[in-house]
């Protein structure tokens, strides 16, 4: 609030420091030591590092003299304020045993110093709030931490410059100061815009008796912080991050990053939110007194997960995954916030420059980058819009692909695996999986099975029909990122997986080996034959097999599972998508599972169960699912025993 803020001229900074020091309070602020910024006691503004900034990059940190008059031009120091609020060593208790065998325990009584933290970066303040939740917000409280926090004042400084490793804007913790402070300052050339964030802060502000800031000063402060935000951009997309990360527990990147990671634990030592500790016992030789001490520990150390039952996280890749998934996923479950505040220390101080932003983007890329299971479009069974047939291309003797130009653009947002209802007056509506979205048209591949489908493929360019959709839950292609992709289709089942092929080949580098195993009745019954060479050229292994063939066919004859005979995914994480007649899908799922693809990542489409398209007519119900609404694409782990069971 402009009206609440005052302006502290640079020359008056010592007045503030003097107020903070009243009553014996020690002021801790940024100082220069050993070529780095270090929080230490300051006696006056002269102790602050005026005219310096830093050059931080992955695995790199240098102080740079910038010649300015700025006092708080440096980013977060290597060691945060955690060393004052949650020191690396703290006494817990003393256990004593007397000569007659009596045992007693005396808990340590916290005796925190009264501190005022000056020049605290927004990410640092946010980190204290995170630790407040962890250490003092649950049923068990770390008394030493709570006492230290209660005995401290926080004077924060908004950031008007972002370092190359900063990503507070992504994590929602900066560059402005929003909560957790007693006073907040924004540095301008000639002084500071100061506002209060607590009762203690209001009292300090009142005693400073500052002149109200001018509109120009307000504008300058706002613009400076906005500039710092703009310089960062959005580096970590947090939307859905928890789920994205937890979906990737067996991503191959964990092993790759473990090759680079030294397991030195630097990242956890510099992290302002890491709270893991071990209790050490320091006993007299005669065992009369044992001092119990809480010490920082790190989930990166080899023995951190050694508990009574053994070491359950022995591999480095497990430990890196534990750290990253805790910060960005399971922390959310435990404490309702991320365990990362975007200060960038773990990037700067990693000796090999592992950048958490890069790892997150590689392991759990944002959903927005790939078509995902789209939300179900609400609508009634009568909400058709008109579409015009642009072309009809015969695929086989009884199957054609219609390219339809819808009057409602929403249909063009169909995701892979979704379907539409096709209505021709006088015929029952047809649920048809979308086989491609391209050039402003929706492509539907339809086989003449009865009067309605026969009429549909007999349409000519220019003809009109009704469409409703897109409907249903599509393929979870996100689950295939970074893995081998196995697409198995039988007969006309190639149509609903073609959008997966289009997607994967468009973003080919996001996936590892990609294989299509396609089974058809005879060579003449194969779909999309003219596209297969192009698919192969673009990096997909295309394999085909037919049930029967004449002597002209030089390809394979047999069942589609034979195409998987030479494959093994036990050591190669893979995701499979399977569509075809039920018996074919059952045999394929069994083969894939035998060959190492977990059921959570075998997806099937139950498109043959669909009826009205929105799960209201009841025809499509299968156990707890309405296939039209909850499917048609399911992971095998979701279907469980329902898959392949007769009469459900």
């Amino acid at each position, binding site marked *: 609030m402009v009206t609440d803020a005052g302006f502290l001229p640079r020359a008056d900074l010592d007045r503030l420091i003097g107020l903070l020091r009243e009553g014996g309070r020690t002021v801790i602020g940024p100082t220069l030591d050993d070529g780095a910024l270090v929080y230490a006691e300051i006696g006056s503004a002269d102790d602050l590092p005026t005219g310096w900034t830093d050059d931080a990059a992955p695995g790199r940190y240098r102080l740079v003299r910038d010649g300015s008059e700025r006092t708080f031009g440096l980013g977060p120091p290597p060691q945060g304020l955690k060393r004052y609020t949650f020191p690396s060593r703290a006494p817990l208790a003393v256990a004593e045993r007397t000569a007659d065998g009596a045992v007693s325990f005396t808990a340590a009584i916290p005796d925190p110093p009264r501190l005022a933290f000056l020049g605290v970066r927004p990410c640092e303040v946010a980190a204290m709030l995170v630790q407040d939740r962890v250490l003092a917000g649950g049923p068990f409280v770390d008394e030493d931490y709570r006492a230290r926090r209660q005995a401290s004042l926080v004077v924060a400084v908004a950031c008007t410059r972002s370092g190359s490793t900063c990503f507070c804007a992504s994590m929602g913790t900066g560059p402005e100061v929003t909560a957790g402070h007693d006073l907040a300052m924004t540095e301008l050339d000639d002084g500071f815009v100061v506002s209060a964030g607590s009762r203690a802060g209001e009292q300090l502000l009142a005693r400073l008796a500052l002149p109200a800031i001018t509109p120009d000063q307000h504008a300058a402060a706002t613009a400076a912080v906005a500039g710092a935000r703009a310089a960062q951009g959005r580096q970590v997309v947090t939307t859905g991050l928890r789920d994205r990360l937890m979906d990737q527990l067996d991503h191959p990147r964990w092993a790759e990053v473990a090759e680079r990671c030294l397991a030195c634990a630097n990242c956890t030592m510099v992290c302002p939110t890491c709270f893991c500790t071990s209790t050490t016992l320091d006993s007299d030789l005669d065992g009369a007194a044992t001092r119990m001490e809480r010490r920082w520990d790190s989930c990166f150390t080899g023995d951190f997960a050694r508990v009574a039952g053994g070491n359950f996280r022995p591999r480095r890749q497990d430990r890196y995954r534990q750290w990253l998934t805790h910060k960005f996923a399971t922390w959310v479950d435990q404490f309702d916030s991320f365990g990362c505040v975007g200060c960038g220390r773990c990037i700067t101080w990693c000796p090999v420059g592992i950048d958490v932003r890069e790892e997150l983007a590689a392991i759990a890329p944002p959903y927005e980058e790939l078509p995902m299971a789209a939300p179900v479009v609400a609508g009634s069974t009568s909400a058709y819009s008109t579409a015009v047939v642009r072309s009809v291309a015969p695929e086989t003797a*009884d199957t054609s692909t219609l390219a339809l130009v819808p009057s409602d653009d929403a249909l063009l947002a169909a995701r892979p695996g979704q379907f539409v209802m096709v209505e021709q007056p006088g015929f*029952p509506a*047809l649920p048809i999986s979308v086989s491609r979205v391209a050039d402003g048209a929706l492509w539907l591949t339809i*086989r003449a*099975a*009865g*009067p*309605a*489908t026969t009429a549909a493929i007999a349409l000519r360019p220019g003809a009109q029909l009704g469409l409703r959709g897109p409907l249903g839950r599509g393929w979870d292609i996100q689950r295939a990122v970074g893995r081998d992709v196995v697409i198995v289709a*039988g*007969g*006309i089942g190639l149509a609903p997986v073609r959008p997966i092929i289009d997607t994967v080949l468009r973003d080919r580098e996001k996936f590892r080996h990609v294989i299509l195993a396609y*089974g*058809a*009745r005879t060579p003449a*019954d194969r779909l999309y034959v003219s596209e297969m060479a192009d698919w192969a050229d673009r990096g997909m292994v295309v394999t085909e*097999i037919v*049930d*029967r*063939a*004449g*002597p002209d*066919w*030089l*390809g*394979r*004859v*047999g*069942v589609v*599972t*034979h195409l998987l*005979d*030479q494959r093994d995914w036990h050591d190669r994480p893979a995701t499979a998508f399977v569509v*075809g*007649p039920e*018996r*074919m899908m059952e*045999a394929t799922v069994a083969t894939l599972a035998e060959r190492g693809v977990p059921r959570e990542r075998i997806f099937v489409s139950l498109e043959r169960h669909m009826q009205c398209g929105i799960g209201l007519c009841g025809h499509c119900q299968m156990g707890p699912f309405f296939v039209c609404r909850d499917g048609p694409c399911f992971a095998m782990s979701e279907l469980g025993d329902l898959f392949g069971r007769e009469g459900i």
Partner: protein
Amino acid sequence: MNEHDFVAELGATWFGAGLSLHARARLGECARLLTHPANAVLLREGDDTPFFGILTRGRVALRMRVPERGPVTILTVEPGDVVGWSALVPPHRATSTAVTIEPSTLIEFEPKRLRELLEHDLALSATLYPRLLEAIGRRLSATRQQLLDLYTQQAEPVPW
């Protein structure tokens, strides 16, 4: 064929990988490695089966002739799988015609000699026959699936 090469060659196939080292070494006594050009007829349906073989390279079609339809390919044998299992099962007559559809290399076993070996070396029989049954079982299972004609249209009329 050099015994060491043979054991390695056989071990690299799906069929041979499931056999014991002893079995592979014994089998070497009656084996030869042969490469056939495309369109070579390896077995003729109804004739005595001239060898039991394991395909290592190429592709072999198993065909049956149907009057007025000509030869129909029932199955293609891919590398690793067997050709001529009937050489080991009475009456030792081929159940289909096997034709190479591309240049193909097979490990071929002389049937009489192999049957004698199996008769006298029970350890060999005990590892070879289960593997052979597994191979034939896979074929049977595949044939049943093909018999279901899964990709064809439903027979009953549908309104769609």
